[in-house]
């Protein structure tokens, strides 16, 4: 199996404060990892460890300051913005904690949007099928604002399923959901990774969610402190404690 993502010594800093109080915070301090095709990788760590920043850099949503990130064979760190847009459009799907559906579009239009923007418009049947697969069949004309959090997150999953990206980045996908909805969404993410050669990279605080991953990376202070294979929640918790 080929690698979907190869990252080497990725560094990212942010400036905070103004004028004389301005200071630089090193969020990522040299992270290296690889994600194989068809693999689900979980990234865990305490708040402020750089998990979301790492996700954003790996997906091309944010530019790393230095190092190397190859996604589907394309270099991201020194790529032009237009190239990053193209890479995301062709290969990447996102699921966010806050669902991040576009309020001006209906549910069906949200599902169809990434494929449309990539120049591969979906048929109504395909949109319907994607919504059906997440238990929202017949809700094409609903508005995001009229749906519950769990339903909105399932629409986000349907959007990813419909556009068939090579890699899905999920940032705290169950963070705003109750346990029942959270389990359902995690099941769908696991299904994506088990499906045809697609990878999932998931950032999560939820150790039960992380236990579904094929590999778990423990991030601390901008570095990968531990790497685990398929693990239980207890093993992941122990690894977090050891990394402290």
């Amino acid at each position: 199996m080929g690698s979907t993502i190869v990252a080497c010594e990725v560094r990212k800093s942010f400036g905070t404060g103004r004028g004389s109080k301005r200071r630089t915070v090193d969020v990522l301090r040299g992270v290296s990892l690889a994600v194989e095709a068809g693999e689900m990788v979980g990234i865990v760590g305490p708040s402020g460890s750089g998990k979301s920043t790492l996700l954003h850099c790996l997906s091309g949503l944010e530019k790393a300051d230095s190092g190397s990130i190859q996604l589907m064979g394309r270099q991201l760190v020194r790529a032009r913005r237009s190239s990053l847009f193209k890479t995301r459009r062709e290969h990447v799907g996102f699921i966010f904690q806050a669902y991040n559906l576009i309020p001006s579009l209906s549910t069906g239009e949200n599902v169809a949007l990434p494929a449309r923007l990539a120049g591969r418009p979906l048929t109504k049947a395909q949109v319907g099928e994607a919504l059906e697969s997440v238990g929202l069949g017949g809700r094409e004309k609903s508005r995001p604002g009229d749906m519950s959090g769990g339903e909105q997150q399932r629409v986000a999953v349907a959007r990813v399923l419909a556009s068939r990206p090579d890699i899905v980045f999920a940032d705290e996908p169950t963070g705003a959901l109750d346990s029942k909805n959270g389990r359902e969404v995690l099941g769908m993410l696991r299904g994506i990774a088990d499906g045809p050669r697609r990878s999932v990279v998931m950032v999560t605080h939820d150790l039960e969610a992380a236990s579904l991953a094929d590999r778990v990376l423990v991030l601390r202070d901008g570095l990968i402190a531990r790497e685990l294979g398929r693990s239980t929640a207890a093993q992941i918790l122990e690894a977090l404690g050891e990394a402290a």
Partner: protein
Amino acid sequence: MMRLVFSDLRDHAATWIGALAVAVACGYIGGWVVSLQATAGFSTGALQKFLQNAASSVLLFSLIAAVAVLVSAANLTVSAQRRSYALWQLANVRPALVSAVVLVQLEVVAVLGAACGTLLAVATFEPLFPLVLGSREALAQAVPVADMARMPAVWIVTAAVFLCGGLKGARSAGRTPPLTALREPEPKRARVTWMRTLLFAGMLACTCWASLALTESPDVAMSWSVFVPILMVATLVPLAPLVFPALLGAWTSMVSQGRGSAWYLARRIARNALSSSTSIETPLMVGFGLVAGLFSAMACSVDYLERQGVADISTIGWAESFIMLGGPVLLCAVGAAVSVVMSSRSRTRDVALLVAAGARPATLMAAAGCEALVHAVTATLAGMACAVASTAVVANAFGVPLLGNLAFGEGLVVSLAGFVLVLAATLVPTWAALNREAAVVLSAGE
């Protein structure tokens, strides 16, 4: 309390700038009204009468646009601040105090804006007077006087309209439970409330009465026909939440949906914007309806006089056009643009979402341009309907044909001015949003 008033104004200056711009525009127009009256005071005879009428005309024709635009600006500003007001309540600021602070803020912005507008009027009245009104021979003898001493009257009127326009929002800011405001950051959708229904019924009754009164005699029609477009526009405004979405859906569906992602996004974003507020389209519709309706009504009266064999009919010159229409055109264009700018906070997030979904920057800029076009065309179509209706009434009163007397060209000047300002108001925030990291914007929202 005053510390809260001013610190919030300072911290959220970007939100209040739209209301300030509208207050400046109102102050500027009010400054011209006062200055025309002051100039009349230093004139005599026919000149004095003309100048007094000019001042009254500017006031009358600008008033309806001013009320519509000021009320929209005040409401939008208060809606945009819902989250802040919710946080104040969570910090134990009493609801009554929240409402009081909001009202004081509205008044501060109204007076400050009106003061800036009147200062600008004072500075430009004397140089512009001969340029704008000098085409009339009689006005060549007038000595323009910009009387600063009378300008506080403009500040007070602007503040009063802001107070009326923002009262509902200010009370709502205090009464809305803080957790409700924090959980539901978007205000309720625009709809035809019972107040709007009453207003529509009242205006419809006035319009019908005026239409019937016009048919009494051509002399009555000659004196009162210019008020029909005002009444017609005022009748349609309360129905805006019903009319605009239907009109937008109808005409945009006639454009092929395969016209690329930019048109696809623009249509939906514009339709969604209309579902929460009609404050972009309403000023443009008012501007077009007034301008086209007034010029059409005057064309009908000229047509009637020509058919009666009256020779040497004086038509409207540049001076009269400026007096009647300068105020509404300025207010409508500024009002529409301000409404778009006020939505820039959600635009930043929407742009980030679309970037994350794979949209190209060029697509998003094109979508912003198309969105401005959709707003302008929708408003123009509604304005055309008003102008046709009012001209039909006037033409019937005079017994002249409708079609030959429609003056859409002048109305299109308003549409074009509005489109340019709305275009700038959509493109600039979109460009600014594209220059922010999408990840930062989306993370901040979480």
